[in-house]
């Protein structure tokens, strides 16, 4: 039986992901049994993916304003003032479920979707980043997923001509059945040319542009709002197929039209396609909308209204135009050989009316569809206490620990991945991946630079979601600071398990509290974001595996003079100064995991006032031109950071002994926060004195020079040996 012949009842509603209570609301709103198309519209609009019904209550607690915020959450992407009349527009979004089912297309269309969120607001995309979490390297499927995801991101981004400049990768068995693909796009627009999605002007034409509509991705948003079970791979038909070439044409055509005054409102057709774009545009504008599906460009014959409204075919946009500019707009899209069709008009009815082949297939009041969307205050369990750290001993010594750490999956060189992403296209990439703590791109035609990063340490979030949430924000802020840029704002991509489980909600709520506090103290508001729940896999025996709580933070900072930025490569001479206090925190550290094989202890404490003090100090010294290179301390701690700077510069250094009363492995591999390494070629004493005056701890930790890393015990590890340890993992996993 095809969908079109199905009887609409509570059972079908459940199949579409609506609870009986939610279906009851539909009946009340409609005053009758809805048609299949209407049920489809309700089910996608009220899906977790589109409605944020489990998360909205908590998202509201996040700080979203600052003098430089032009548009916060609620638009297609966040917009911040970067000076000279320009705005940066950015957002991060997940494509987790599709990327497990079909890694190449899942990741590719994730990139395509987030690009559209940004250029729909009038911005030319200038950079892509992606935060990836994969299962255990030992799991045979991991290699296949890594391969597909990396090819998909590259295949889309390289063709569309937007440089992929950064991101992060973790491996953990908790992601075996549910990898995370979080894609971020950053664009730049003139502040007076920003386009919003609220429709206006009764009678104005509603125009469809881009690719034709096919039967792909139907109910993708609903699929993303449920756990996986052993039949997950059978859901492949719900995954969309991307065409980066059409996306490139769509970018150029939209930007060309946006240079005119033709567009009243515009929105991309993302999750839930024509349904969500038309409902959201009309709803935000407080108008009604009539759609004539016979006019929709279709890839295949015989599509029903239900299929067209629910299709998630890619590379499509919906616009409201000024009527007198319709033909001008048509000419632009015909020039770029894209479909252009007037598919409806705005009304004053406050309803969405969908007509197809002479029949009204849907007629829904818009206000209740939005206002009466369910919001849940899900039960929250008390947080579990972190596991005891347990006894510490160092069985292998500093040298072997360092080599093991820089070769481990979470710290090994990512060059194998970066080398498949075009990071230079556009000619504005100042720091390519690995060159600095954050990627730096110049804004063409100005001296402004943007510093961009994504960060999260999921193992911290599992041990202590509140500290972990704060740490993700703090690390992003540090990474931007380490380039010399001023951190401006963040986009969040909150990846968690099933929110109907109180212990998962506990993680979610605590992580948001931690993030919110960090954002407030660091003056680093959240301007856009995305929530991905139900990241769990159901095993055949009925048990479930949730991912580690992963509130990925994408962040943006600005340099008014991009030429003042610094990277992380050691210069040929000078000293290395450690800024910040070292307490030797080994709980949840990579050293503990890689050397002692344990993931125990609490996450490191995040002292936000100290973060701010130390970071502001470092940024000021970079701006003053006193710092040649800078690197923040994070995974693996101090010695790993020194090794990374040495490998990047091809220059060694002689480390000074710790003499702190802290165990050597805790001093060198502890993951205390709020710390940086700065390379100083000039007067280090003056810098240290200034730090002291500002209540910032700073000390010389190494003398730069030579071709190896000389440890306090006198042993020297050559740069070549460091590199070979660092570079082995990915080729070994992927090319063997």
């Amino acid at each position: 039986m095809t969908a079109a012949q199905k009887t609409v009842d509570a059972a079908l509603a459940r199949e579409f992901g609506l609870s009986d209570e939610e279906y009851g609301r539909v009946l009340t709103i409609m005053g009758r049994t809805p048609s299949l198309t209407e049920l489809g519209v309700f089910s996608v609009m009220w899906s977790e993916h589109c409605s944020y019904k489990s998360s909205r209550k908590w998202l509201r607690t996040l700080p979203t304003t600052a003098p430089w915020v032009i548009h916060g959450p609620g638009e297609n992407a966040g917009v911040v003032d970067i000076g000279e009349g320009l705005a940066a527009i950015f957002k991060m979004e997940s494509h987790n479920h599709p990327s497990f089912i079909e890694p190449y297309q899942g990741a590719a269309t994730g990139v395509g979707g987030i690009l559209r969120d940004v250029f729909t607001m009038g911005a030319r995309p200038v950079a892509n980043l992606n935060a990836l979490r994969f299962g255990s390297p030992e799991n045979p499927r991991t290699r296949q997923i890594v391969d597909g995801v990396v090819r998909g991101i590259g295949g889309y981004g390289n063709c569309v001509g937007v440089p992929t400049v950064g991101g992060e990768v973790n491996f953990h068995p908790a992601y075996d059945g549910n990898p995370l693909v979080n894609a971020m796009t950053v664009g730049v627009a003139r502040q007076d040319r920003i386009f919003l999605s609220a429709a206006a002007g009764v009678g104005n034409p509603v125009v469809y542009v881009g690719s034709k509509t096919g039967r792909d991705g139907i109910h993708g948003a609903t699929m993303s709002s449920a756990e996986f079970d052993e039949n997950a791979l059978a859901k492949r038909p719900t995954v969309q197929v991307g065409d980066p070439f059409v996306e490139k044409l769509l970018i150029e055509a939209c930007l060309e039209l946006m240079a005119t005054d033709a567009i009243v409102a515009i929105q991309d057709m993302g999750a839930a396609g024509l349904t969500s774009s038309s409902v959201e545009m009309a709803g935000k504008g407080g108008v009604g909308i009539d759609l004539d599906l016979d006019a929709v460009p279709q890839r295949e014959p015989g599509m029903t209204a239900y299929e067209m409204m629910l299709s998630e075919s890619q590379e499509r946009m919906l616009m409201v135009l000024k009527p007198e500019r319709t033909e001008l707009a048509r000419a632009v899209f015909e020039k770029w050989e894209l479909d252009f069709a007037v598919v409806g008009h705005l009304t004053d009815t406050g309803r969405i009316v969908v007509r197809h082949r002479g029949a009204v297939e849907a007629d829904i009041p818009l206000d209740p569809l939005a206002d009466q969307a369910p919001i849940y205050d899900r039960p929250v369990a008390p947080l579990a206490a972190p596991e005891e750290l347990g006894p510490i001993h160092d069985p292998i010594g500093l040298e072997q620990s360092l080599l093991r750490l820089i070769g481990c999956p979470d710290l090994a060189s990512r060059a194998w991945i970066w080398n498949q992403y075009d990071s230079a296209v556009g000619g504005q990439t100042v720091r390519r991946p690995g060159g600095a703590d954050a990627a730096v791109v110049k804004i063409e035609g100005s001296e402004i630079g943007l510093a961009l990063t994504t960060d999260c340490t999921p193992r911290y979030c599992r041990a202590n979601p509140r500290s972990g949430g704060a740490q993700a924000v703090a690390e992003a802020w540090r990474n931007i600071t380490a380039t010399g840029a001023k951190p401006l704002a963040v986009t969040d991509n909150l990846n968690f398990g099933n929110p109907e489980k109180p212990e998962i909600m506990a993680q979610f709520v605590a992580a948001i509290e931690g993030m919110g506090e960090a954002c407030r103290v660091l003056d680093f508001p959240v301007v856009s974001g995305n929530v991905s729940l139900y990241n769990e896999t159901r095993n055949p025996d009925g048990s479930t595996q949730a991912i580690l709580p992963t509130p990925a933070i994408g962040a943006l900072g600005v340099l008014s003079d991009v030429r003042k930025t610094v990277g992380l490569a050691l210069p040929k001479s000078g000293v290395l100064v450690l800024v910040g206090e070292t307490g030797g925190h080994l709980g949840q550290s990579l050293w503990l995991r890689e050397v002692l094989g344990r993931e125990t202890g609490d996450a490191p404490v995040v002292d936000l006032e100290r973060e701010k003090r130390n970071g502001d100090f470092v940024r000021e010294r970079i701006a003053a031109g006193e710092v040649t290179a800078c690197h923040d301390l994070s995974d693996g701690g101090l010695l790993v950071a020194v090794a990374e700077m040495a490998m990047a510069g091809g220059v060694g250094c002689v480390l000074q002994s710790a003499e702190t009363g802290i165990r050597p492995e805790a001093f060198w591999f502890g993951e205390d926060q709020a710390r940086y390494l700065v390379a100083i070629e000039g007067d280090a004493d003056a810098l240290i004195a200034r730090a002291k005056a500002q209540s910032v701890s700073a000390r010389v930790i190494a003398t730069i020079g030579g071709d190896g890393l000389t440890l306090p015990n006198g042993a020297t590890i050559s740069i070549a040996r460091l590199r070979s340890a660092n570079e082995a993992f990915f080729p070994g996993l992927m090319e063997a």
Partner: protein
Amino acid sequence: MKTGIVVFPGTNRERDMAIALHGVTGRKPEMLWHRDTTLPDLDLIVLPGGFSYGDYLRCGAMAAHSPIMREVKAFAERGGHILGVCNGFQILTEAGLLPGALLRNGGMRFLSQDCYLRVETSETPFTRHWKKGDVFRAPLAHGDGNYACDAETLAELEGEGRVAFRYASAGGVVDASDRASNLNGSVNAIAGVISANNRICGMMPHPEDLVDPLMGGVDGKPLFDGLVEALVR
């Protein structure tokens, strides 16, 4: 020097190229649309990088048959100078303006990283600012850059000194069997070739992305400086 850059649907490095040309010539290049059937007065036409028409067929195969390419061929017949980079090189081979073909990279993956090029001749307008044997760095970004041609063509190219650039190690050593330097597996490590009349050059790496110290160096700039010196009227 008056320059023009051809824009096909899917071209994506036209802006990089425009910045590089603007930097050396002091004037903005003309952007030439793929459907154009006439050309302005030009000294140099550049076919830039990208994915013309999506490159879902063989790379450059559709672009080679676009309306503007009839004009580009006529320009070549009149003795005009043409530079094709990356997708532009692929298009020049598909259009028959340069010999050989660009196959899928040897490792079957898209490659995006810096490579080193050894200059094989300074006797061209494209390479006159280098000395033979000079080594420079350039980013490459392609899935299909594995240069191939038949033995006869190869002998001709080598015999006539028409190999402009070869992939090399940072120290300038060329070894076609070394995948660490000859990243895409090109025959004789060929990265760029020159036409018989010395006026058309195709190359896979991107000199236009390395013309500003801020972006990591100026290794690519001599190519553009040389062109200005050769072609300025």
